[in-house]
């Protein structure tokens, strides 16, 4: 699952806005063991908010994999190599991870209860 943490084909973030789930595509990057999240649109309002980050891959059943992390976003300066000097503003955050759930159906096996 390390590749999903490092370079997921698809990453989205959910947060609560007005009692409804807002879902936005994001870019994630792992730097020195820390999970960084880039949110297009300059969403600084997400600083300190609880989010659910999902990175996933796969089309057919045994290909499906995902890494879902619940955590809190903390605003950080843009990394030096973050690119995109112009255009749409991008807000960068460090994700303080809480509960993490991962699945990889292609690796489904009998549980070892011993």
């Amino acid at each position, binding site marked *: 699952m390390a590749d999903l943490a490092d370079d997921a*084909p698809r990453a989205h973030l*959910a947060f*609560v806005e007005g009692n409804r*789930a807002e879902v936005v595509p994001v870019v994630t990057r792992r730097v020195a063991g820390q999970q960084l999240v880039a949110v297009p649109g300059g969403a600084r309002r997400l600083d300190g908010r609880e989010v*659910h980050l999902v990175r*996933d891959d796969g089309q*057919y*059943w045994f*290909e*499906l994999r995902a890494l879902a992390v619940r955590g809190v976003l903390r605003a950080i300066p843009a990394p030096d190599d973050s690119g995109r000097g112009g255009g749409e503003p991008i807000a960068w955050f460090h994700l303080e991870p809480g509960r993490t759930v991962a699945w990889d159906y292609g690796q489904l096996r009998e549980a070892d209860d011993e």
Partner: protein
Amino acid sequence: MSSGPGIPLPRGGRRVLRRSWTVLVGTVSARSRPFLTPIYYVWCGDEVFITTGPGSWTGRNLTTNPHATLVFGGERGGPAAPRMRVTGPARRVDGWMAPRALVRVALRYYLAPRALLDQLRHLRQIPLRQRYYAASRDGMGYIVVRPATVEMLDA
């Protein structure tokens, strides 16, 4: 996908649906916490049928907050890939899907040539898949979302 949505879609929306295999379903829990998960779906007429049971996290969240946010697309092409966001009221339904939706789920996800190849490659795990579903707390059922807003997301 996608017998065709019975509501107008923005430009590029149908193309996104054709390429979208799992929809990201966002809900809010009774404790006002966000929850997001990718799930198989079919869009029939003016409803989106989502293949998760009433006892799943998504299903349970909908009992107290019957609203869902769906994002289609983005599986290929990275962050710049086009996506479509749909919001609307959602409800949990016990039992089997309506035949028109069930047939589409089967044809798209389990009986398509690549789906069959995927299962052939994992023949030994298919009984485990059956046990996995049988042991889940999701229960027999599904979720239905009735789209109220539809928009393309900027890359």
